[in-house]
Each structure stands twice: as C-alpha cells, then as structure tokens.
C-alpha cells in the first residue's frame, strides 16, 4: 500500500462544488480523502502550493489512428500526448483502418489501450457500416464490446432517414449518437469559412449554414426519436442558438467545442498555413464569441479536442490538398484557460467543461474527485508559460495550430488510477 499526499493545492471538484485549498490523499489506485488531512503517514508528499488539483480531463473526441495509420499516431503516442495535456480518459473515433464498425476492432483497440495506453481509452464505434451512411452498424454488439457512443464523424450521414434509424436504434441501447454536423453538398469543395477572408485569399469557402442546417436537421431528428444527440465541434453562432433553443425545449442534446474554434478565426487562413485547415473550418470573430458565450453559459457542455494527427508530409502540400485536422491534446488546457483569465468562467466551471461534464455526457466514470473513486488526477499550473514547439510535442504528429505560440497554463502531473502518467520536467517533456 502506497499513500501519496498532495498538499497545498487549490482543489477543484465541480461535482461536489468544492473549490478550496486542501489535501488529497491517494492510496494505491484510489482517492482516499479529499480536503481534510488524514491521520495516516504518507509515503510521499507532493507540495502543490499555487497549483490546481482537478479530476483528470476527459476528451470526447480524438483520433488515435490505431489501427491502420500508425505513422500519424498510435495509441501509445496519442495517450502519452493526452496525459501531457492533463487528460486521463480519451474517446477515439471510428475512422481507423479498418473502420471500427465491428466488435473485433473495438476489442482490439481496447486491448492495445490496456497494453500501451498511458491513459484510459474509451471507444466510439461507427454508427453505420464502413462509415458509408447506409446500413447501421451492429450497435448492440459494439456496445456490449465496450463502445460508449456511436459516430460516423466526418463521414456525415447525409441521408436523414438513415440518421433517424441510427438515433432510434442507439436510443434503445442507451448510447448517444455523436454528429459531425456538416451538409457535405452545401460544403462542396469548401475548405475554409466562406467570407471576406476566403474571398481575398481565393480559397473555396464553406458557409456556416453547411453546419447550422445540419444541426437543425439533427435536432429535429433527436426530437422525433427521443435519442441523445451529441453535437460534435460546434463552430457557428447559429448552431449555439439552435442548441440553446432545443435544450430549453427539452430535446436530449449535448454539445462540444474545440479549443481551436474557441481561440482562432478565419483570418488565420490568410497565411495559407495548412495547420489552420480543419472541418468544420475556423469561422468569424462573431462565431467565436458565440462559442465562448455558449461554453460559459453551459449551452455547450464541454471542450473536446478533435485531436487529429497528420504527418508533416501530408500537411506540407497545397491548401486544398491537405487533410483536415489539427492535434489538440497538449494545448487544449492552455487555450481553455484564456476564458478563465478573461473572467468568462471560473476555474471550477473550466474543470467542469474539461472533465466533469464530458464524463457525464457519455455516462462514463471519471471527472470527479470522489473518495473511493479512481485516482484520475491532474495537477495544473495555471500560470506556467511555455512555447509550443514541434520538438517538444509528445504526439507523433506536429500539426498544431499553435506552433510557435507562447501559451499560459499547463498540466504538471497527470495520474491515471494513481499511476503517474505524466510529469513535466524542468525543461519540459523530451
């Protein structure tokens, strides 16, 4: 039995509402006590004055690329990057090769995660076979194998009748459907947000309505079916309004936003830097403002990274030819902290959006500091300044929108089930 005592930190636990200086004792893989000091003598003491201690973050949207695209990322490198960002649970999307639309692939990913994962991995399985948007996958079998949600992600289910059946069926087995809302016809060849910046730099644009029209459709289908719809990476002002209205009307909808959509706008595409190319695209300053407001007021439930690693040589091509997506595990906390510094959210609310609510959206364990619960913890220095450099990113791919930027705030240590999954060295991770 090993007792680790973390003392002096500001303890942030949204579920209990606790926000106070205190002591947390971890015994082996469990949290033993929170707040008050235990009489027992610790084996190890961590002095954490000036730091925050929070439940480890939970990411509902990531691409770990294993199996099939290990040159971009694999479960080991991806989960190490997640741990470096303060995450203790990540959910991986189904667009692997082969696609995760069978229990065999779901089980394979979970086995690889047990063997090589630095953090817990939960599996999101395909909603339709082969992500083709035609015939639903064997959702009941996939759920039995461990799938926590279903999504075709960027392979949008364009046929509303198929989407309806997917939602109905998923409802029956008690799992949410995660929707990447983008009308692919309306998007057309668009690679950036349609507007003055796209027009000036001559890149094909996709209007915000490519997203909002699909959000509206899926909200109507969620209303029709009573299913739990989770809207992935909301990017547009009008989507936030639609989700707010639907929540008020009692539709079972939750939503996430990425750090890059919270932080950046379509002005960035003027550089032709493909590390600003993702789907949905970065939108206007008005959209970004609505996302920040939506996250702060709880319309948007959580921050999710949409961590999407791509090799340098895949991104170092013409803008239109480059794949969509950017990495996000290691910068998410720093970016989300901007909202706390701007006093848009309290630290407790921030932890809620990064850890507590995402766990509740999927109904999975984690996201809280419960005595007796697993010791999934993160120690955060909210003031630590660091520079995003490709050599210092843990992810196998370096396609970050924030390369070269100085960011503030980062995870210093991450424990998964009491095991130290990440510790920031004085010089940062190698």
């Amino acid at each position: 039995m090993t007792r680790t005592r973390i003392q002096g930190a500001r303890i942030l636990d949204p579920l209990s509402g606790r926000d106070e200086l205190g002591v947390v004792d971890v015994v082996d893989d469990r949290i033993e006590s929170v707040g008050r000091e235990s009489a027992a003598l610790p084996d190890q003491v961590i002095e954490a004055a000036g730091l925050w201690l929070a439940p480890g973050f939970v990411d509902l949207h990531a691409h770990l690329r294993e199996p099939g695209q290990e040159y971009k990322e694999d479960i080991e490198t991806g989960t190490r990057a997640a741990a470096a960002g303060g995450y203790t649970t990540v959910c991986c999307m189904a667009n692997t090769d082969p696609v995760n639309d069978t229990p065999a692939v779901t089980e394979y990913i979970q086995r690889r995660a047990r063997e090589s994962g630095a953090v817990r991995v939960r599996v999101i399985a395909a909603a339709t076979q082969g992500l083709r948007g035609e015939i639903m996958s064997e959702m009941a079998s996939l759920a039995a194998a461990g799938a926590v949600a279903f999504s075709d992600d960027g392979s949008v289910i364009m046929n509303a009748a198929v989407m309806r059946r997917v939602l109905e069926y998923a409802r029956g087995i008690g799992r949410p459907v995660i929707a990447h809302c983008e009308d692919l016809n309306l998007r057309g060849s668009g690679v950036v947000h349609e507007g003055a910046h796209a027009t000036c730099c001559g890149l094909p644009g996709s209007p915000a309505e490519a997203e909002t029209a699909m959000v509206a459709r899926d909200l109507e289908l969620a209303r029709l079916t009573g299913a739990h719809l989770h809207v992935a990476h909301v990017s547009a002002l009008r989507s936030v309004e639609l989700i707010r209205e639907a929540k008020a009307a009692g539709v079972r909808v939750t939503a996430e936003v990425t750090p890059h959509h919270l932080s950046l706008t379509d002005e960035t595409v003027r550089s032709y830097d493909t590390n600003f190319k993702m789907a949905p695209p970065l939108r206007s300053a008005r959209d970004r403002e609505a996302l920040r407001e939506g996250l702060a007021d709880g319309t948007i439930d959580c921050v999710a990274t949409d961590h999407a690693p791509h090799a340098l040589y895949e991104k170092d091509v013409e803008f239109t030819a480059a794949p969509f997506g950017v990495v996000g595990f290691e910068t998410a906390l720093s970016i989300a902290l901007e909202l706390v510094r701007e006093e848009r959210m309290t630290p407790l609310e921030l932890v809620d959006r990064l850890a507590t609510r995402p766990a509740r959206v999927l109904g999975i364990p984690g996201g809280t500091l419960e005595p007796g619960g697993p010791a999934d913890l993160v120690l955060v220095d909210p003031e630590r300044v660091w520079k995003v450099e490709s050599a210092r990113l843990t992810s196998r791919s370096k396609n970050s929108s924030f390369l070269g930027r100085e960011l503030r705030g980062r995870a210093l240590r991450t424990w998964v089930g009491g095991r130290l999954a990440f510790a920031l060295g004085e010089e940062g991770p190698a």
Partner: protein
Amino acid sequence: MKHLLGIEGMTRAEIELVLETSEAMLEISQREIKRVPTLRGRTVINVFLESSTRTRVSFEIAAKRLSADAINVTRAGSSLSKAETLADMARNLAAMSADVLVVRDSVAGVPHMLAERVRVPVVNAGDGCHEHPTQALLDAFTLRQSLGSLEGRVISIVGDISHSRVARSDIHCFTKLGAEVRVAGPPTMMPAGIEALGVKPCFSMEQALAGADVIVMLRIQQERLDGALFPSVREYSRTFGLTQRTLALAKPEAIVLHPGPINRGVEIASDVADAEPSRILDQVTNGVAVRMAVLYLLTGGQT
C-alpha cells in the same frame, strides 16, 4: 520587392515603379533586335503546374528578351501533393540554381508557400482563384496608355468574380491607383464579402456599365456549369454578355479589356472584341513588357 505574390501586398509606389519600368521594356519590344543583355547568365524557371499557354509564353519571351535562360517545368496532372511535398519541390527547384521562379498553380497560395521555402524571388503567375498580379499590372499599363491616369475612373469587371484571380488582382490594382471599381455577374458568381475589397457588386449590366470608363470582361468557363452557377451559356450571354447594345450603356469612349482567351459570342460578341474600343491585343503585347519589368526589378533591377 522581394517577390511578386499579389497586388494586395503592394504599395501604389511599387505598382507605379513596375508600370514606369514597363514603358522602357515596351520600347525594347518594338526594336528590330528585341533583346538586351540585362539578365545574361540568369535563369528563370517557369513552374507551370497548371496548364497555360499565353502566360507561360509571355513570361518565356520576357525572360529571353532580357537574355535570361528560361526553362519551363510543367507537370501533367499538376497535383504535386500526390508525388511531392512543397518542401521537396522547393528544394529541387533551388537545386537547379534558379534566379527567379515564376509559379502558376491551380491552388491558391502555392506561390506563397514556395516563397517561404526558397531563397529566390517568386513571381505569382496565377494561383487558383486568388491572384494573377502580372495580369493586373498589364491591364493597368494598357489603361494608362489610353486614359493617362486611372484616378477617378469607373471600371466595371464583369463575369465569374468568385472564381477569378484576374478580378481580385484587378480590384486591388485599380483601387490602389484611384479608380472606382464595380464587379458584376449573377449572385452565384459573386463571392461572399467582396465589398471588403472596396468594390460595389452589381447584378445587371445596366447597373454595372452606366457611366463606366472601362469594361473588363472575364472569360466564362463552361465547366462552371457543373457547379450549377448558371443555367445555360445562352442565358448567361443574354444577361451578362458584352454586345453593341450593352456596350452602349457605358460612356461613349469606354474601352474594353479581356484577359483572354475570349469566348466569342459568350461573354463578348465578336463585333465588340474586334472593334475600336477593344484593347485585347494591346494587353497581350503589353504583357511581355510588364513581365520583363517584373523580372528586371526582382533581379537585375535590385541595386
């Protein structure tokens, strides 16, 4: 100037320097022996990853009239993404000891991305729907031959503004030189936020051409029919084609430009294209002079 990537990034003084230098270059082109030794021993590589005849030949002639060695690199299929990264492409071109790279690509931003990766000057010879700066410079040069100054002139650009790099470069160039610019076409061909470029969008020829000093007609690409931007060539021609009737909407002395190649009977009627107001062939002649000026200023002209 280190590179010529777009008109947007140029100052009025830089534009005027190119136009003034072009005057001298035009004189060279009118000599019996059309060659000066200015760029002897220099190598200009024309990297044309999207097919082009007119612009490539124009750059090639421009380089040769200045005694530079002009080499053309083309790529069937053009998508370098499948075979090679931009960094590899840049390394290979640099390894050929180029003094200037002239780059044409079907994707916006490729000249900029190459310019960040090579040490030699890059000239954008047209990138996707973004810019075609030498076209705008030769258009301005041609207009100044007829009009003297562009200050206060009304210039209407008609056609598929969304997909036109010529329109974007012309807009930047003409507005910087003091003209009032209108853009016209069906709303399906009008890009979002075009007003941000300081122009007025018009949706009819009546609106666009009333009081215009200059009409720039853009080539209509029939393949845009696939994108359902207009119902038929016939209807386009009736609503936005330049004919004697629509030409009469502009000022009596109005002049007509077209970046070519023209679709006779589609965006421009033959009797307009071949008549007095048209400066279409002057544009081609001036194009060589303007490109000579650009090559000169980016290499030998730097002191």
